[in-house]
């Protein structure tokens, strides 16, 4: 009887040992958290963004990019509500995340102090330059909205024919929209050869006739937008109806419309149809209507995980992949350096992404460079314009000159 009990106990021990050993053989699991608007306001951007991140981490785990180690990234919908984002973030901390992926400008600004206290690196989908003020842990994946708008203004200054170009800004009535205005003003004060005639804060307008006619009466030729697609769609449709839209860049007596990252992409074409023709858009992401090695990989990833064509073609899908790529690369570098994968070391790895160690994801138009004093990732921005219903590249990716002067 005694020997039977002994054998049973031994068997249990063997099974437990075998189970423990098998877990260890499976490698380490690195926990990450992401909170974003999969539903609710701006979910047209957040939804494909989440899909991009989810797919890339699945790809990393399935193709063993980190060897036997895996990434476990929990993605939760916050419906664009900062209180929900904060709750998600706190729960992720309890779960022991080593890096956090955030979304909106409001929640990034709202949780800035929490990120500092927790000393955790954060990649945000908001490219608001103000995110970086008084912060050491927020990293912008690409150049800020300020860089984007100043870059567009520089393009206007360089390519406008006949005197000083008259420009109006069309912005969202929030920190997200207003943020870059002062930087454009500073660039103009620093010698950027445009005249900033007016800054328009839009509402939920059904008709922009009065605004457009007013801009025309002030001889404005360029409208640069920093908002989301929907108000831009209404504005350019009104402009088309009134016959005010330029058929080519800078056409005299007409309006050329331009905009930052979240104003453009296929969503704008979906909303405004042929009124988007000749719309100029700036971003740091490769887009599938300009095929290349990066977009081929993006489309292959989307196909691998059964995404529909609309998601696969979305620049927000690319943006979601990109933050997952940067996070994965930081983990890979920490492992390669023989460091423990934790908050502090990932922060260190991100800050080391510069010079020869800059990281080039396939989703962007330039390399990601971070340092202790520069937490904006991709500096090289690409201008696209709609030609025959799709966005096409205009020239090569460029970095803003005046942002360097005014920083």
């Amino acid at each position, binding site marked *: 009887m005694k020997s039977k009990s002994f054998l049973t106990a031994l068997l249990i021990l063997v099974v437990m040992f075998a189970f423990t050993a098998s877990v260890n053989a499976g490698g380490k699991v690195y926990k990450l958290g992401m909170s974003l608007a*999969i*539903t*609710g*306001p*701006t*979910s*047209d951007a*957040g*939804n494909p963004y989440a899909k991009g991140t989810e797919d890339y981490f699945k790809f990393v785990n399935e193709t063993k990019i980190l060897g036997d180690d895996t990434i476990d990234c929990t993605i939760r919908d916050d419906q664009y509500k900062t209180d929900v984002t904060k709750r998600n973030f706190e729960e992720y901390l309890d779960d022991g995340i080593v890096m956090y992926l955030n979304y909106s400008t409001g929640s990034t600004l709202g949780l800035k102090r929490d990120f500092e206290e927790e000393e955790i690196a954060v990649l945000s989908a908001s490219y608001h330059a103000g995110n970086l003020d008084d912060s050491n842990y927020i990293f912008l994946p690409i150049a800020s909205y300020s860089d984007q708008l100043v870059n567009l203004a520089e393009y206007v200054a360089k390519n406008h024919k006949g005197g000083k170009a008259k420009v109006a800004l069309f912005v969202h*009535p929030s920190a997200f929209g207003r943020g870059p205005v002062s930087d454009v003003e500073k660039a103009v004060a620093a010698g950027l050869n445009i005249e900033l005639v*007016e*800054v*328009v*804060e*839009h*509402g*939920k*307008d*059904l*008709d*922009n*006739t*009065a*605004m457009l*006619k*007013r*801009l025309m*009466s*002030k001889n404005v030729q360029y409208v640069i937008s920093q908002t989301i*697609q*929907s108000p831009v*769609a*209404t504005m350019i*449709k009104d402009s*088309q*109806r*009134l*016959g005010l839209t330029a058929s080519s860049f800078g056409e005299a007596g007409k309006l050329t419309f331009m905009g930052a990252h979240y104003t453009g992409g296929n*969503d704008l074409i*979906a*909303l*405004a*149809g*042929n009124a988007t023709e000749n719309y100029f858009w700036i971003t740091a992401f490769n887009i599938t209507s300009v095929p290349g090695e990066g977009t081929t990989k993006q489309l292959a990833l989307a196909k691998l995980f059964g995404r529909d064509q*609309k998601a696969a073609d979305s620049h927000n899908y690319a943006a979601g992949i990109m933050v997952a790529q940067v996070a994965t690369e930081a983990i890979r570098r920490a492992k390669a350096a023989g460091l423990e994968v934790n908050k502090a070391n990932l922060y260190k790895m991100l800050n080391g992404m510069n010079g020869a160690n800059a990281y080039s994801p396939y989703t962007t138009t330039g390399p990601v460079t971070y340092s202790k004093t520069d937490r904006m990732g991709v500096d090289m921005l690409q201008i696209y314009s709609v030609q025959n219903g799709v966005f096409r590249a205009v020239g090569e990716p460029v970095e803003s000159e005046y942002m360097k002067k005014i920083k």
Partner: protein
Amino acid sequence: MSYFFQIVVSGIVVGSIYALAALGLVLVYKSSRVANFAHGQIIAAGAFITYYLTVSIGVPVFFSFLASMIITFFLAMSVEKIFLRRLIGEPIISVIMVTIGLGSILDGLIYLTPFGSENFSFPVFLPQQPLSLGGVSISWTQLVGVIITFILIGGLSWFFKKSTIGISMRAVSDDQFASMSVGISVPRVFGLAWALAGLSAAAAGCIIGNITGLNFDTLHAFGIVVFPVIILGGLDSILGAVVAGIIIGLIQQFSSGYLDGNWGLSGTGEVMPYIILVVVLFFKPHGLFGIHEIERV
């Protein structure tokens, strides 16, 4: 001078669409004294149904438009029957809370479809060249929107004034218990009010969606955007909604046209309607056409 008239035309167009979007709120309030916070979701649903029928099924857009109004008519009637009928006689605030919950449920249902987080636009079905006269232009979408608005509002005004059911609805609006005592079916009236609100919401959704593109957040926001219209108009007055809608549309356009860009001002079109609303309510607390009820004890 054409600038001035263009702003007048734009203001009337925008105001008419506001009036149409507000009509459903007025109808529900008129019959049941309830502010429907799920109205924006019904506006969006109407637009998406029209889009789905037109693009996915291939129904001509005019018939899709009619079909969506019929579908939302029955959809809103069903919603009233399932969720709200059991609350007849309960405190108004309870019913209002249910409409807020209902809005969340409809949000959730729409987010389960691609319409929740993707953008679309109706295929072009009207001439793209605007109608112009003396430097004043109006698009076909806007013109058709205004015509539909006035047909619907005219029809409903006639319905409330002349038809037996319409008069029953007005009676229920005045006093539910007195109406029941004379044999009017209050549940039926409530159902019909919701159904008509659904029908008008679908029409508004299609017109707004054709102007802004089909984005759920943009569309359902109009359920809230038009609240100042019904407050200014007097909550339960169809004529009030029309007049207030046009007033607010004109204020927005004139503010945008003459104030914005001067003296450092911007975005006044969003603020001025509220300022005017406060001023009007200061002198007429029940709105321009609202009924001031006096109860004698």
